[in-house]
C-alpha cells in the first residue's frame, strides 16, 4: 500500500501522479521506440495501425467517454481527415500542413454537426450522427471531380522536408509521436476547466448549467475537439494505406471505433488505447486460435463479426469499465494484497449499471 504526503497543489495537477508513474511511462515509451528492432514488418505495421486508430479513438473517447455524447458518425470525420490530407498533399501542400488542415476541417464539420446535435441525446443522437456518416459516404462517392468517386485515389507517402516516411519503421515513429502528442493534449484538457466541464455535462446537465457551463458551447466544443483528433487519425490512415476509397469509411468503421472505446473502458484515455490495440489484434488472435477450434466453428462464415459482437456484449454486461477497469482492479489487488475486498468495486459497478448509463 502507498501512503502519500502531499505538500503542494501542483502534486494533484501534474500529469504523472507519482515519480514511479513517470518512470513507467518513460519505460513504455522507450519500449515503443525499441519495437522496430524486435518486431517483424507485419507486426510493426499492425502497431502503426494501433497508433493511428488510437489518435481517432482518443478523440471519440473525449466525446463519448467524457462528454457522454454517443457518435456513430466518426467514420465520417475519419474520412474527411483522410480525404483532406490526400487531396492537399496531392496538390503539393506539405504533409504537416495537410495533417493539421485535415484536423481543422474535420473539427469545423464537427461544429456544424454538434450544433443540431445539441438537442439530441442517446439513441436519437446515434441515429443523427449515423445519418451524417451516410451523407459523407455518399458525397465521397459522388463528388468525382474532387474525390475520384468509387475509383478511389492514390496518396503519396508523407514527407517532412527531406525526410520521407516511406519505410514501415519511419511511419511507425511518425504515428507514435502524433499519438503521444494527442494523448498529452487530451490529458491537458481533462485536467483543466474544459475537461471538467465535459465530464460535468455527462454527469448532470442540470447542475452544469447551474455552475455556469454553457451546454451549447461545451457540447459543440467536445464535438469539434473529438472530430479534430479523428480527422488527424484519418490523415495518418490515408498516408499509411496510400490508397483510399469511400468503401473504407462505412458505418462499420464507426461501429468499430465505438467498439474500441467501449471495450477499452469509457471514461479513460488508457481505455481508448487498450481498446484499439485489443480490437486490432483480435482478428490475429482469432486466426491464431482457429487451429484449435472445432472445424465446423472455424470454417463458419461471419466468425469474426460474431466474436466481435460477443466481446462487446460481454464487456458491457460484466465489465462496464472495460479493459482499463480490469487493469485497475488487478493493480489494486496487488497493491492491497492481502487485504483486497471484492466489494470495493461493487458499488461503482452498480452505479454504472443504473438507469443513467
Amino acid at each position, binding site marked *: 500500500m502507498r501512503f502519500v504526503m502531499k505538500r503542494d*497543489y501542483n502534486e494533484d495537477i501534474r500529469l504523472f501522479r507519482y515519480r514511479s508513474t513517470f518512470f513507467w511511462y518513460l519505460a513504455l515509451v522507450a519500449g515503443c521506440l525499441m519495437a522496430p528492432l524486435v518486431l517483424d514488418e507485419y507486426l510493426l505495421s499492425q502497431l502503426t495501425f494501433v497508433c493511428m486508430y488510437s489518435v481517432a479513438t482518443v478523440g471519440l473517447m473525449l466525446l463519448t467517454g467524457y462528454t457522454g455524447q454517443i457518435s456513430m458518425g466518426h467514420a465520417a470525420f475519419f474520412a474527411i481527415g483522410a480525404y483532406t490530407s490526400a487531396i492537399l498533399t496531392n496538390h503539393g501542400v506539405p504533409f504537416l500542413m495537410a495533417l493539421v488542415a485535415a484536423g481543422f476541417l474535420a473539427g469545423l464539420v464537427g461544429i456544424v454537426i454538434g450544433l443540431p446535435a445539441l438537442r439530441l441525446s442517446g439513441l436519437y443522437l446515434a441515429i443523427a450522427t449515423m445519418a451524417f456518416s451516410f451523407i459523407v459516404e455518399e458525397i465521397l462517392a459522388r463528388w468525382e471531380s474532387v474525390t475520384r468517386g468509387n475509383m478511389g485515389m492514390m496518396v503519396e507517402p508523407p514527407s517532412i522536408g527531406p525526410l520521407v516516411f516511406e519505410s514501415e519503421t519511419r511511419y511507425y515513429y511518425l504515428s507514435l509521436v502524433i499519438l503521444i502528442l494527442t494523448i498529452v493534449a487530451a490529458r491537458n484538457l481533462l485536467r483543466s476547466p474544459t*475537461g471538467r466541464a465535459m465530464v460535468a455535462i455527462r454527469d448532470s446537465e442540470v447542475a452544469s448549467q*447551474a455552475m455556469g457551463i454553457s451546454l451549447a458551447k461545451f457540447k459543440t466544443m467536445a464535438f469539434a475537439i473529438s472530430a479534430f483528433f479523428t480527422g488527424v487519425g484519418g490523415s495518418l490512415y490515408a498516408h499509411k494505406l496510400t490508397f483510399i476509397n469511400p468503401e473504407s469509411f462505412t458505418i462499420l468503421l464507426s461501429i468499430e471505433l465505438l467498439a474500441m472505446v467501449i471495450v477499452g473502458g469509457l471514461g479513460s484515455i488508457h481505455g481508448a488505447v487498450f481498446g484499439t490495440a485489443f480490437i486490432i489484434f483480435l482478428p490475429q488472435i482469432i486466426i491464431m486460435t482457429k487451429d484449435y477450434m472445432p472445424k465446423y466453428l472455424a470454417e463458419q462464415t461471419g466468425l469474426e463479426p460474431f466474436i466481435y459482437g460477443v466481446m462487446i456484449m460481454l464487456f458491457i454486461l460484466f465489465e462496464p469499465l472495460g479493459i482499463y477497469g480490469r487493469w485497475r482492479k488487478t493493480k489494486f489487488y496487488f497493491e492491497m494484497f492481502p487485504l483486497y475486498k471484492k466489494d470495493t468495486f461493487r458499488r461503482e459497478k452498480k452505479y454504472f449499471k443504473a438507469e443513467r448509463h
Partner: protein
Amino acid sequence: MAFFEARDISISFGGLKALNRVSFQVEEGEVFSIIGPNGAGKTTIFNCINRYYTLDEGTFVFGGKDITRARPYAIAAKGIARTFQNIELFKNTTVLDNLLLGRHRHRKTSFLSEALFLPWVRKQELRNREKAEEVIDFLDLQAYRDQQVAGLPYGVQKTVELGRALATEPKLLLLDEPSSGMNMEEMEDLSYWITDIKEELGITILMVEHNMRLVRKVSDRVLAMDFGVVITQGETKEVLEHPDVLQAYLGEEGAATRS
C-alpha cells in the same frame, strides 16, 4: 432598491397555476426563507430563477438588472448559485472535482491554452484549488476530498452540494431544502454554516425549507405560500405564527387547537 426582487411572477403548467403573481424582495445580507406545503410552488420559483422554466409573466431583478430572460448558464455567471432538492452532483468524480467545477464561472483560459497547459492555466488551476480548499475547510470536508461522490452518505453529498455552490463565490445563494435527508447532527452543523455564510462570507441566502426548526433558527424573513400564491411574508416569528400559515400546514382543526 432591493438586492433581488421577484415582481408578480406567474407560471402555469397546463391548467395548473404553479405560481400566481408572486412578489417578494430579498435584501442584501439576509437569509430569506420560503415555506409552504408540498406542491406550493417553492422549487418552481428556483427553477424559474435558473431559467429551467420560463416565466409566463413577471420579472426577476438582480443587482438592478432584469435577469428574467438570461440564459441558464448566464445566471450562474451573474453570481447566483444554487443547490438542488434531490442531489444533482457530478457523481462519477471526486468531491474535489465537484468543488473545482464550481469554479467554472471564473474560467479565463481558452481551450487551446488548456490543451497546451500553458503557465497561466496552471496558475488559474492553483488558484481554483486554493478556493476549493477554503470551501473544504469551511465545511469540514477534508476526509472526503478525494472520494467519489457516488459512494458518500446522503448528508455528506448534501454538504458537498452546498460546497460546490460556495466555490462559485456567489452573491446570492439559493438553497433548495438543504436539510432534507440530513440527520440531527448534520442539520445542527448546517444551521451554523448558514449563519456563517451570511455573516462571515457576506452571501445573501434565499432558501426553501420544510424544517421549521431550521427556518426559525436562521431566517431573517420568511415568505409562506400555498397553491402558488403568497399567504403572507415578513419577520420570521410573525409568519410562523400567522393563523393562515398554521392552517395551510396543519389544516382547519389543527390551527383551531393551536390557537
